[in-house]
């Protein structure tokens, strides 16, 4: 168990290192001098040269990289020129927004996907099965910006139940905070629901065909025991992996939804950084998002190990 986690952490460090190399060099190769970008077109050549000097942009690339990497290890990712603030602080400020809508969205998607996916598999070809299959299609087919706008028009402007845009921090007013994240979360959930529902349904169908289900039926157990303890237990691995991937994707920034609902989250930060060629901010964001995706995947893999203990033994070479 511990050896597995340690080996995973080791490989994560390698991945992070490779990503740091790629991020740094790719962004540095992009034409345009960052100093010129910061100062704007009105700046004199002298001013640009000065800033280039002070930012260390005239040093060889590998030295610049090493300097950046060392700062990164000290959690210093430099200063964003668009915001004029430290990248670390910008990220820390944006996390709560993105994480809360991601968690809320996944909670909604998981809840609906498990209920409908399980019932759809048990009652294959019933009305519920057809209904959930249409949800799958709709969720995948409808673009989230469109649903987002429909929600804003209907719930925000017509019914006036939810705010049209903006984010209220949780420590300010809990109810208003909840209201401000419900619509974006639902929009995100609809986007992820289709895939998850499909995976739950097909894993469940597969589990229902297994021999242990025959045994559970012969034992004459209650339906709850048969379907939840035996069937669902055997069907958890694949959905959990997908949930982890989806959550990691959302936590890395939900650009479209954050833009539509004007939420100051990571996605907005990424968009601003790209729009304004804020290379320092962008580098920091890419590193942070990569690290969080790796971290979430690691957590999910450990969870799966608890659900499917055979993996533990495979890792330890017992089998």
């Amino acid at each position, binding site marked *: 168990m511990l050896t597995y986690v340690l080996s995973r952490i080791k490989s994560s460090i390698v991945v992070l290192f490779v990503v740091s190399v790629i991020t740094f060099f790719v962004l540095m190769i992009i034409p345009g001098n960052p100093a010129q970008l910061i100062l704007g077109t009105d700046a004199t050549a002298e001013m640009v040269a000065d800033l280039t000097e002070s930012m260390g942009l005239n040093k060889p690339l590998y030295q610049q990289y090493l300097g950046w990497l060392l700062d990164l290890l000290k959690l210093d990712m430099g200063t964003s020129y668009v915001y004029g603030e430290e990248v670390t602080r910008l990220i820390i400020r944006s996390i709560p927004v993105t994480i809360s809508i991601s968690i809320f969205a996944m909670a909604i998607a998981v809840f609906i996907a498990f209920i409908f996916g399980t019932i759809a598999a048990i009652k294959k070809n019933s009305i519920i099965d057809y209904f959930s299959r249409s949800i799958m299609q709709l969720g995948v087919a409808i673009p989230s910006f469109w649903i987002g706008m429909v929600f804003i028009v209907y719930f925000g402007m017509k019914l006036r139940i939810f705010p049209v845009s903006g984010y209220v921090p949780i420590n300010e007013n809990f109810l208003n905070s909840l209201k401000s994240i419900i619509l974006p979360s639902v929009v995100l959930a609809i986007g992820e629901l289709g895939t998850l529902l499909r995976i739950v349904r097909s894993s469940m169908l597969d589990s229902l065909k*297994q*021999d*242990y289900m025959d*045994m559970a039926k012969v034992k004459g157990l*209650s339906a709850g025991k048969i379907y939840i303890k*035996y069937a669902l237990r055997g069907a958890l691995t694949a959905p959990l992996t997908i949930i982890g991937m989806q959550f990691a994707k959302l936590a890395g920034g939900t650009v479209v939804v954050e833009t539509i609902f004007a939420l100051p989250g990571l996605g907005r930060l990424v968009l601003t950084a790209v729009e304004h060629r804020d290379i320092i901010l962008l580098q920091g964001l890419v590193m942070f998002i990569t690290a969080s995706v790796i971290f979430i995947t690691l957590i999910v893999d450990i969870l799966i190990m608890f*659900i499917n203990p*055979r993996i533990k033994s495979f890792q330890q070479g017992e089998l």
Partner: protein
Amino acid sequence: MNETVLVKNLHIKAGKNTLVSKTSLTIKKGEIFGLVGESGSGKTITAKAIIDLLPEGLTYTADEIITAGKNILTASREEKKEHIGKNIGYIPQNTVFYLHPMIKIKNQIGDGYMYHMKKTKKEALKRAESLLIKVGFKSPKTVLNYYPWQLSGGMRQRCNIAMALMNDPKLIIADEPSTALDTTVQKQVMELFKTINKSLGISMLLISHDLGLIKHYCHSIGVMYAGQIIESGSREELFNNPKHPYTQLLMKIVPSLSIKKNEPLTEIPGYVPEKGRDSRGCLFVKRCPKAMEVCSQTVEEHEEKGHYYRCNL
């Protein structure tokens, strides 16, 4: 009531295709009944029909199915489930996936017992331990803490047997219980069945394609061919006085140790028919050395002193 199982005129169909037809069998209290036949002869689905476990798409009809004193045909779904879970133990052929691979033995061995007998988990584990000792485990507590995949095939099968015994069933259905095991373990398992049958008086339906094994352990035998029991009776009667040509041929096939060098092994040419199992005539007619013209039209059923066979001879 002297019978544990009474099946009359069982038909199993997959859509329009008949798989099992006109099958009747009786298992007396306390006896081991062996159901023998080639692969695809319908042994397993006959057993599965009795415990209401037919795969999706298969349907059955019968004049009568009584197990452990209850008429399954007139019972409601709930009653049926309850009755089978309480009174019938099922031991499967393949040992690998019949125990849930992600659940420890202790968390799955007793749930039927807890549910039907209204027992606590503690009581269930206590009973499981004593049964695991009975099926030959030295340290049942360790076994209970294992996942199924941490056990060998023979150990898993013994866990299955212990699990089947939890409710003190009236009947145990064992579907080729020893096929997946090697010969020494096979012997252990079969001896265990014999002991269970003798000491607890539990009736058994033993399915196998191994005539030698059936002969050794069963009190009564049914020979199945193409979805029909073509001959059945007590072991002595069947082996000393086989009536049906198929049974006679089967008995010749069982290789004996007295076989001479270079003597070819006998075989029955041809295959078990998949189609036309709803024919009125004899289904063995195409492979039968003694076939007559009438055989493909009709077939006579005989029954004398418990020895049943369907043949025109």
